[in-house]
């Protein structure tokens, strides 16, 4: 309990332990913020957290808090032990959508801090993995005013619940030589197009987008997004022969064999008379040789993206990785980007119309079967969708399907 002194913290012996150690301490940060602003919600939150550390149980429960016209974007939290810690009785989160690639100007961030200190706790998650700026700790009756002020400065809420979620994208062309498409721009286009679905939970369940500029997948898109948009290329890896030679000369051939040749997943690289040869036909664009020999090699010239669908967390089925759905599509021009957005909408609509409640895209595809999914979403079948054709004979082809028709005998 507060002891009368507004700027005095209550004892939190367990949390205090987390102030030590070399890594930046969030407890230190919280205390500092409290000391600076005297916002008692912080003290309440610390008290409750310390209590959780004692009892090893959590004490927040959800509810419904929102802003005018939106159905999502605020995560509401009410304390289950507000009799003990009344200062953090309400502790809702406002999810703000940042710019693609998590780029900020100091000016814009200061604006956010100012508004947030005015209405909320001043506590902020700068969240990398999932995208949102999570402003944690606000009371329900201040949410609308806070939002209005953010919105006036050009910020909008992110997703929560059964809707399109805030997306994530890698730094991309802004600073990365591997980038095969404009992650920031495509992210922006896509999320702007789906803004309505971000704000209003009208879907069977959540839908996430992540944009990585190349197969290194620095946003973990395959694993964390229903729609993983990943840069790739056609044609040969670009080779700077002089740099290849320089690399071999400096590292030695043993190193090159043991670190490049033997690591190529498809044996696409062979050793030939003391140098290496990339057999581009066999290359699966894994990035490894390019990563190792970054000066000598770079992605091919004809660039686009792959779309993988159905990545999601562990719930119910075990972790699902996204599956290849569109192996290659160009997204450079406005028209190409629009066509891409339309394709995605086609998939999203088919899922939205047919999935069960709380069924993510990946679960949906697994339940109805890839064949029915491709038919429903009107996507072309491609061998790239699977690591291999089926190994069991358990299917019934359409009665009018004649597999031999297209084969010359």
């Amino acid at each position: 309990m507060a002891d009368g002194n507004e700027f005095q913290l209550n004892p939190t012996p367990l949390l205090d332990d987390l102030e030590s150690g070399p890594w930046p301490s969030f407890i230190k940060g919280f205390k500092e913020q409290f000391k600076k602003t005297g916002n008692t919600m912080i003290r309440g939150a610390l008290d409750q957290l310390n209590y959780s550390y004692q009892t090893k149980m959590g004490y927040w429960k959800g509810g419904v808090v929102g802003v005018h016209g939106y159905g999502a974007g605020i995560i509401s939290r009410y304390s289950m032990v507000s009799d003990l810690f009344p200062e953090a009785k309400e502790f809702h989160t406002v999810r703000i959508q940042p710019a693609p690639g998590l780029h900020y100007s100091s000016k814009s961030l200061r604006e956010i801090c100012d508004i947030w200190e005015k209405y909320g706790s001043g506590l902020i998650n700068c969240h990398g993995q999932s995208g949102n700026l999570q402003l944690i700790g606000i009371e329900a009756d201040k949410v609308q005013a806070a939002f209005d002020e953010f919105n006036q400065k050009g910020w909008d809420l992110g997703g929560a619940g059964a809707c399109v979620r805030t997306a994530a994208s890698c730094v991309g062309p802004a600073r990365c030589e591997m980038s095969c498409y404009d992650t920031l721009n495509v992210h922006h286009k896509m999320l702007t197009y789906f803004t309505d679905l971000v704000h209003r939970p009208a879907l069977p369940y959540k839908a996430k987008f992540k944009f990585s500029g190349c197969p290194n997948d620095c946003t973990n898109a395959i694993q964390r997004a229903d729609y993983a948009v990943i840069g790739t290329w056609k044609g040969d890896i670009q080779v700077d022969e002089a740099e290849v030679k320089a690399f071999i000369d400096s590292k030695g051939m043993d190193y090159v064999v043991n670190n490049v040749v033997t690591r190529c997943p498809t044996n696409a690289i062979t050793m030939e008379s003391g140098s290496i040869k990339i057999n581009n036909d066999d290359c699966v664009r894994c990035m490894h040789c390019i990563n190792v020999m970054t000066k000598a090699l770079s992605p091919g010239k004809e660039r686009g993206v792959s779309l993988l669908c159905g990545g999601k967390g562990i719930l119910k089925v075990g972790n699902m990785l996204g599956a290849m759905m569109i192996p290659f599509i160009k997204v450079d021009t406005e028209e190409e980007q629009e066509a891409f957005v339309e394709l995605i909408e086609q998939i999203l609509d088919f899922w939205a119309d047919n999935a069960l409640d709380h069924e993510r895209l990946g679960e949906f595809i697994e339940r109805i079967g890839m064949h029915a999914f491709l038919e429903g979403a009107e996507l072309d079948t491609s061998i790239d969708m699977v690591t291999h054709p089926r190994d069991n004979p358990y299917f019934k082809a359409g009665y009018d399907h004649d597999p031999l028709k297209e084969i010359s005998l």
Partner: protein
Amino acid sequence: MAAERTWTTIESGPPNAWDFLHPVCQKNYGKWKYHERPRPGVLKHVAESGDVLYTVRAGTERQDTATIIRRFCDLADKYADGFLRWTVRNNVEFMTPSWDNVEALIKDLNDLGHPVGGTGPSVSAIAHTQGWLHCDIPATDASGVAKSIMDIVYDEYIVEEMPNRVKLSTSCCEINCGGQADIAVIIQHTRPPRINHDILSGICEMPSTVARCPVAAIRPTTVNGKPSLMVVEEKCICCGACFGACPAMEINHPDYSKLAIWVGGKNSNARTAPANMKLVCHGIPQEPPRWPAVGTLVKRILDAYKDGARDWERMGEWIDRIGWKRFFETTGLKFDTYMIDTYRHARTSFNTSTHVRF
């Protein structure tokens, strides 16, 4: 009535192999050092003792006769000290320490119409099943298909010019007694069973038949007042499992039981783990006595493999390197949506990476 029995059965189990071994095998049992292949169809094993043993391998009819076998026995007596063996691919093998015997034996075998080969990186004899000759559920004649294919790939049996060993199989129903192979030809039913209600109630153990269906498509019903079964057509995946349980579940059909080609099965643990083979062509019509379409396609796959694979790459490993896309391109086969798995573990075959070839 059979005559009174005078013999009491001795449940002897399998005979002991020892007495059937060539003396050089007995002497060097478990003490072999290395082997070479002096020519296609011939192995040279060298023992720690320094002993050398040649093996000559020859193709057979597989559906043999007493007459054929006695002829092999004659050759064994003449060149191999009275011993011979069959390989797991129905080839016959004769062993001898004498190179002269090898050459004479090869000549005799060839004169009798038996090709010598099947060793090393060649196409060995096809593993096949009973077919119309003997089985009670076949939708094709595996022996005929096998003979037709072997006639076409004959030239690859007698030389060692493949990247690695090539194992073929054919099976006469989806059960696939012929097993996994680099290239397999198997029946693929394309329509649900037609139910012969006239005989069903008399011969069918209905609960077992219902239980046999992997997708629970079979349900009890009543037809003409008699208990019978029905099949929910949308569910049925035409596997034919019910037909094995009950002959009234007539899955076989002269037109709708087609052939399919599978590739990339691998049993050995060399390099990659054993792998099931994958479907690459279906809907091939029955064309006895020669099944020309099957032969053409098998040959085309073999040619592409021979042309494209690196030394030691088995069929499936070659495809893993070049990718399925290129496999379909170079063989002229056509990947279609039905080749995407939709069965129990389908999800595990999805490409959950950006690894892709263009």
